[in-house]
């Protein structure tokens, strides 16, 4: 195929601005699928594709487009993960493109993720075609969005395509714009092979399937390849594209995007961003930008009942086959027994994993509050990284601690500036930027410790701005901070699973809030329970749960018996889900009590 007829692009957007709908419409209008196939294949393809022996990701597809002049173009529409947790994956996918469609909701305008994605696209020097979507809605204001695009994004808004993906308006114009503006890929088919590995997933029939963009050279079935970051070698068994139906190809040439099956058994043998080259005639230089993705958020996962430990381990093992970005290692908590310390890319990622473990693997989980990683500097010059506050005890001669910082971007209506400033100040945020996107809408940027947003920042931001604020963050660096470990004691015993690392200036408030929350979460028991918050040996806050002295139903006659029994059975169910620590029974929610400490 002629490179000039090839267009590789992604669709990027803030959540709910209409990315998937536009993608579906593009597939439909290029004839990738018949309308009736659309639903089963694109939106709900998993089972169907498994039967064929291969799974596809819905929207990384190769489409054939014939324009009004009768010229035929091949579009590779490359899917990107839609969330901030997966920024690196997004950036790798974008590195496979020459252009993007930047979708903006005509009723909402530019949002935080619009900007985050746009910045990524600009870093890759991609051609940006603005697509203003949802113009059919009564509250659509495309002119305002155009102004925002020009003022904030420095994008020529004249080129913006007005679209209603839902109504099928402007789809042809989008495709014309792709042809007209997005440059075809470059690359020499005769150079040594250089492919970007930008996505990979595990298929239980075929092993790992990777998506690659051939940057230089030519890849053929039967070639022996090497992954440059890991040094692993494989033989190419199959190449092809998804139209979205799977279509085999013998050869992928410079500029082309496609899938590769190469008898790869484990997902962690394929690193997103890695360079694939021939083992015989390798390229001298790997593609730039590769990095090992490291988990940013950690949480302890414990089975509610000890006999589910093996089940949890198996579940994590299986889950990692599909998601190599999850890390886990066995850990023991004096409070919770045997479990795993798991690492996630971010909060959403953590939620997804927890959800899958419960739903797909049926493990009753107790999860401890999420924490970030800290760098511990010892007096003898060592640096130790910890992912669990409880581990701080094991380190002697601590000189100082460093915590990760992010730069957080918030876009909100201007009337919430005060609220946002107050919230970010409470969270130790340092404002680095404030600018009006247009009269009425403001962009605020903060350098803020990751530990301050990892708990409930986003929820707080949303609720205090009536849902109007959008938020995105990016990791910057580690910075020295005056941090201390806050412990919780129940009847004098430290509950390691409740320990947290907090800033010294906030420790009193957080300690006070934490014990107060715990008091609300822990039901009265048959004996008094003392809840204490302590820093080292110094108790800084205390609450007492008085012993339950009266718990007796006044009446139980004929009509009450069934109801009463069911009520007690339900209580018993809840009791079984509690974790026994010493003599104290603690419900799952208590372990997340730290989530609700305002520290005010």
């Amino acid at each position, binding site marked *: 195929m002629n490179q000039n007829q090839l267009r590789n692009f992604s669709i990027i957007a803030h959540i709910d601005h209409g990315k998937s709908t536009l993608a579906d419409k593009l597939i439909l209008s290029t004839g990738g699928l018949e309308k009736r196939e659309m639903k089963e294949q694109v939106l709900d393809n998993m089972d169907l594709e498994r039967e064929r022996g291969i799974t596809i990701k819905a929207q990384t597809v190769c489409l054939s487009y014939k324009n009004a002049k009768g010229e035929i173009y091949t579009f590779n529409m490359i899917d990107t993960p839609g969330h901030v947790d997966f920024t690196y994956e997004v950036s790798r996918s974008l590195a496979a493109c020459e252009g993007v469609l930047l979708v903006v909701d005509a009723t909402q305008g530019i949002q935080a993720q619009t900007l985050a994605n746009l910045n990524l696209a600009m870093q890759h020097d991609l051609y940006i075609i603005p697509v203003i979507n949802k113009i059919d809605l009564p509250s659509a204001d495309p002119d305002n969005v155009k102004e925002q695009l020009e003022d904030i994004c420095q994008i020529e808004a004249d080129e913006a395509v007005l679209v209603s993906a839902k109504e099928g308006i402007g789809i042809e114009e989008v495709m014309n714009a792709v042809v007209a503006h997005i440059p075809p890929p470059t690359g020499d088919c005769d150079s040594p092979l250089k492919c970007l590995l930008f996505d990979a997933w595990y298929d239980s029939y075929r092993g790992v399937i990777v998506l690659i963009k051939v940057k230089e050279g030519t890849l053929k079935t039967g070639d022996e390849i090497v992954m440059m970051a890991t040094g692993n070698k494989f033989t190419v068994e199959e190449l092809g594209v998804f139209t979205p139906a799977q279509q085999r190809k013998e050869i992928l040439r410079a500029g082309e995007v496609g899938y590769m099956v190469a008898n790869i058994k484990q997902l962690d043998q394929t690193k997103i961003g890695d360079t694939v080259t021939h083992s015989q005639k390798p390229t001298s230089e790997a593609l730039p930008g590769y990095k090992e993705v490291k988990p940013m958020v950690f949480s302890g996962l414990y089975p509610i009942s000890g006999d589910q430990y093996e089940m949890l381990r198996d579940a994590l093992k299986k889950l990692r086959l599909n998601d190599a970005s999850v890390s886990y290692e066995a850990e023991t908590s004096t409070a919770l027994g045997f479990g795993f310390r798991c690492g996630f890319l971010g909060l959403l990622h953590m939620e997804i994993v927890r959800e899958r473990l419960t739903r797909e693997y049926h493990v009753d989980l107790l999860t401890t509050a999420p924490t970030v990683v800290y760098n511990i500097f010892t007096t003898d010059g060592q640096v130790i990284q910890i992912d669990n506050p409880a581990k701080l005890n094991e380190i002697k001669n601590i000189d100082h601690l460093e915590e990760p910082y992010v730069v957080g971007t918030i876009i909100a209506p201007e009337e919430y500036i005060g609220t946002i400033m107050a919230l970010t100040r409470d969270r130790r945020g340092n404002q680095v930027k404030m600018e009006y996107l247009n009269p009425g809408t403001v962009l605020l940027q903060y350098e803020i410790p990751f530990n301050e947003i990892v708990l409930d920042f986003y929820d707080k931001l949303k609720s205090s701005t009536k849902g109007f604020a959008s938020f995105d963050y990016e990791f910057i660096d580690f910075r020295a901070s005056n941090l201390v470990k806050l412990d919780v004691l129940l009847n004098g015993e430290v509950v390691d699973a409740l320990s947290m690392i907090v800033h010294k200036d906030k420790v009193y408030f957080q300690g006070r809030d934490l014990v107060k929350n715990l008091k609300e979460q822990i039901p009265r028991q048959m004996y008094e329970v003392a809840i204490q918050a302590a820093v080292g040996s110094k108790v800084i806050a205390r609450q007492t749960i008085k012993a339950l002295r*009266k718990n007796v*139903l006044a009446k139980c006659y004929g009509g009450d*018996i069934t109801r009463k029994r069911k009520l007690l059975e339900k209580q018993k169910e809840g009791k079984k889900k509690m974790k026994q620590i010493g003599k104290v029974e603690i419900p799952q929610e208590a372990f997340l009590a730290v989530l609700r400490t305002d520290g005010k």
Partner: protein
Amino acid sequence: MNSLGLYLHIPYCLHKCGYCDFNSHKINTEEMDAYVTALLREMAHYAKGPAKDRQIATIFLGGGTPTTLPVHWLEEILKTIRDRFNVADDCEISFEANPATVSLEPLQRMRTAGYNRISIGVQSFHEPELKLLDRIHSEEEIHMTVEKAREAGFDNLSLDLMFALPGQTMASWEDNLAQALSKNPEHLSTYNLTIEPETAFHTLKAKGKLTLPPDDFQLEFYKKSIQTVTEAGYRHYEISNFCKPEKECRHNLIYWNNGDTLGLGAGASSYLDGSRFKNCNLPARYIREIETQSTAVEFSEQLESRQAMGETLMLGLRLREGMNIPPFEERFQTSFHKTYDEVISSLTKKNLITLDKNRIALSPEGLFLADSVILEFLA
């Protein structure tokens, strides 16, 4: 012959009280006739069928307010029971009455008809408390009703009181107890006010317009009842019930011993041959269903052995003398001690139960934590 406790529900009241979550409805004279007719018809159904060959050991007319029915219906009901069932000679025949719904003549006719036990819903002797509870009777009417009941010949009389009312003082509760005892009732029930879902009180409480005394204070009320009433010579035989020697409510004892009962009428519950079932609540619907199919069961469940065991303990532990172990083992064909080995040792260690070879009972400490103790025995 297996004996049976027979319960009849009369779902009508002059007025619904704020705390009440019983199946009660405003009186409706037209419907009431149809209701009694349906009740008699349902009775015939069970007498011929599921409850055939059973001897009726106790009869209890509850509500609602049974005495809202014209007395001829109350006579008719008892007469029909006697016609349809084999009623034991010493059958305890109770009915609930509210002050302000009875006068001497109907009481006399009921006594003559064979009713031999009256349970009067006093709740409080104090006007402000009665008002708070939404009761429609006055203090004076309580005195009258007790007097008339005695005059009509009821020598087995029970009074109901309620404590831990919003704003109630200990002095007020002590006076209530003293007044009740001065009537020299054969039986006295003292109930801790509880706020049940879907009651007017529940709504008020949710809105912050009704505040109960704190738990610890409620407990003091309860302890005061036990102390005062037992010192007056009554036996504390169930969590909320006291009686003079051999004046336990035999009908309720059947519930607490988890024995068989047949409930007739709207919303009434039964436990027969290991199955629990319950009629629909709404009188109009009950009447319609009885007319068309002679029964009005809307829920039934066959209990698994483990559930039945749990229920037996849940109910048996309410009795101060506790649950009799040999019948339990006989009934469930299992060793009590083996089945509940761990629970028993943990509860004994905490001093919450007393246990000998034949009985398990709540200790004085365990009494106040009855639900927590019972919970341990449930699967």
